[in-house]
C-alpha cells in the first residue's frame, strides 16, 4: 500500500445518550460509555476502564505499535510485525488460551493505525490528556465533551544524531512551550560549557539531558535523543503507571537516572509473574526478550530506555539464533 492510501474507518453515528461513536475493525468491535470501554470479538467480550484504555491506546498510537507486544491489560493488545500488526484478545493469557477464547487478526499497520487514531480522537474529551500524569489532567470519564486533538497529536521526538546539535532536534525551553514540570522544579537548568573552534560548530556539541527531561510534557513516551548506528538512547519522564504491559521482542535496557521505578515482570506468553525489579538512581538492568513488564513510578522520574533498533533481532530470537538475555555470565 502506498503512503497515500486512505483506509476506511468503520464507525457508527454518535450514540444518542453517551455521544461516542462505536467502531469495528475486522471482527472486533469497540464501544465506550461514561466509564468503560467494551471490546467484543467472535469468542468473547472484555471490559476495561476508559482511562486505562485511552492511556494505553495513546502510547500504541504514538509509538507506532512500538517494539513487540503492547498489552493494554492482561487480555487485549497488539503485536508489531513492522509493516503488519496483530490485534488480539486472550492470545497472551493462559486462561483465555486454555478456554479457547483467544482471538487474533492481522492488519496492515497503517490500516489499524487509522482506526486507532479515530477511536482515540473520538473518545478523548476536552481537558483530558492521555499522555499526562493523573494529577495533571481531567479525568477520562463522562459523556462526550469536545476533544483534545492538540494533546493526542503530539509527535514523538526523534533526533537524527543528538538533541541540541545545530539543525537537529532543539532543546526544550519556556519559549517553546516546555516549562519545567512541577515534579522536577528542583532540577538544575544549567548548560554545559561548550567552547568551539571555528569550523567545528556541528561536531562540538553538548546539552543538559536532565534539564531537557525535566521539561517533558508527557509521561511514558520514550524519545530518541542520541544515536550510535542502531543503538538508540530513548530517555523519558515517568510518573504513575506505565499504561501498558510491554512484551519485549528483543532485549531492552533501562538505566534509572533519577528517583525510583518498580517494574513488575511477567512471562511474555503466559502472563505468569517472574520478578519484581526495583530501580533506583544509577541502577541499570535488562528486560529479557521473553518477558512483559509494567513500571510504577511513585514520583516523576527520569528513565533512560535503551533500544537496539535492528530489524533482524525478532526473527533471530524466534528462530533461536539469538538469546533472550543479553549477557551470559
Amino acid at each position: 500500500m502506498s503512503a497515500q492510501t486512505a483506509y476506511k474507518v468503520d464507525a457508527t453515528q454518535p450514540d444518542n445518550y453517551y455521544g461516542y461513536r462505536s467502531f469495528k475493525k475486522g471482527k472486533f468491535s469497540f464501544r465506550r460509555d461514561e466509564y468503560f470501554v467494551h471490546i467484543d470479538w467472535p469468542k468473547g467480550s472484555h471490559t476495561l476502564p476508559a482511562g486505562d484504555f485511552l492511556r494505553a491506546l495513546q502510547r500504541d498510537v504514538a509509538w507506532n505499535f512500538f517494539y513487540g507486544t503492547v498489552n493494554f491489560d492482561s487480555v487485549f493488545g497488539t503485536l508489531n510485525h513492522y509493516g503488519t500488526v496483530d490485534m488480539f484478545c486472550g492470545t497472551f493469557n493462559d486462561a483465555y488460551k486454555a478456554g479457547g477464547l483467544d482471538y487474533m487478526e492481522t492488519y496492515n499497520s497503517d490500516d489499524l493505525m487509522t482506526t486507532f487514531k479515530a477511536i482515540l480522537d473520538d473518545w478523548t474529551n476536552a481537558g483530558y490528556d492521555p499522555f499526562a500524569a493523573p494529577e495533571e489532567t481531567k479525568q477520562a470519564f463522562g459523556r462526550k465533551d469536545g476533544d483534545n486533538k492538540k494533546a493526542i497529536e503530539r509527535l514523538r521526538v526523534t533526533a537524527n544524531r543528538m538533541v541540541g546539535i545545530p539543525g537537529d532536534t532543539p532543546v526544550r525551553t519556556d519559549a517553546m512551550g516546555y516549562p519545567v514540570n512541577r515534579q522536577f522544579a528542583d532540577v538544575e537548568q544549567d548548560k554545559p560549557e561548550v567552547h568551539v573552534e571555528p569550523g567545528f560548530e556541528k561536531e562540538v556539541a553538548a546539552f543538559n539531558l536532565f534539564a531537557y527531561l525535566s521539561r517533558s510534557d508527557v509521561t511514558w513516551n520514550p524519545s530518541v535523543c542520541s544515536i550510535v548506528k542502531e543503538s538508540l538512547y530513548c530517555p523519558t519522564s515517568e510518573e504513575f503507571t506505565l499504561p501498558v504491559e510491554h512484551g519485549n521482542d528483543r532485549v531492552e535496557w533501562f538505566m534509572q537516572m533519577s528517583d525510583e521505578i518498580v517494574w513488575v515482570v511477567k512471562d511474555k506468553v503466559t502472563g505468569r509473574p517472574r520478578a519484581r525489579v526495583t530501580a533506583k538512581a544509577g541502577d541499570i538492568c535488562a528486560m529479557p526478550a521473553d518477558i512483559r513488564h509494567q513500571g510504577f513510578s511513585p514520583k516523576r522520574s527520569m528513565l533512560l530506555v535503551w533500544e537496539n533498533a535492528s530489524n533482524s533481532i525478532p526473527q533471530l530470537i524466534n528462530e533461536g539464533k539469538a538469546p533472550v538475555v543479553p549477557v551470559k555470565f
Partner: protein
Amino acid sequence: MSDVKTVFGSLANYQKGGVAIIDDDPKNYVFSNVFEVATKSKPYERVAVGKNFQYVIECVRAEGTSPWFACAHDEFALVMDGKVEIRLLKPNETLVPAEKEGAIRLAAEPKGKKMGRVVAGRGHMTLLPKGSAYQFHADKASVVTIQTIQGDVTIERWAEICQTK
C-alpha cells in the same frame, strides 16, 4: 517554593535497588549500579554495564586526566556525577579504520587541530564525534556513561558487578 525532591545518585551517595525473584534467574536482568561500578573501577577503565549485541553502555570513573581515545563512529558521554572536561581534536590522519567498532586508546596525544572542549556537569550529554580524538579530565572523581559499541577498550566483568542471587 516547591518542596519536591528529585533524587540523583552520586559516588558519595547512592542507593541500590535490586531484583526480587518470583520465578526466574536474577542474572537474566544483568542488574548493576553505575555509581557502585565506578566506585570499584580504576580511573578511565571503560566497564560495560549494558550490552545489546555489539552495542554497549560503558561506565567510566573519571578522575585526573585520561589517555586519548579515538573512534570511527559517534559516541555520547553522559555525566552522571561530578564535572568533566572533554577535549576534542581532529587528527591530521585517520586513526581508526572506518569499519572498526568501539573506541581505541592512543599512546599519546595525536597531531591534529583542536576542535574545542566541553565542560560537562551532572546530566550533561556530549557528542564524541566520529573521526575525532578525545580526552577526559576531572579534578575530582566523577562518573560518566558512554553510549558506544564494544571495542578494544571495553571491559566486561559482569559476574563482579551484577546481582547473581
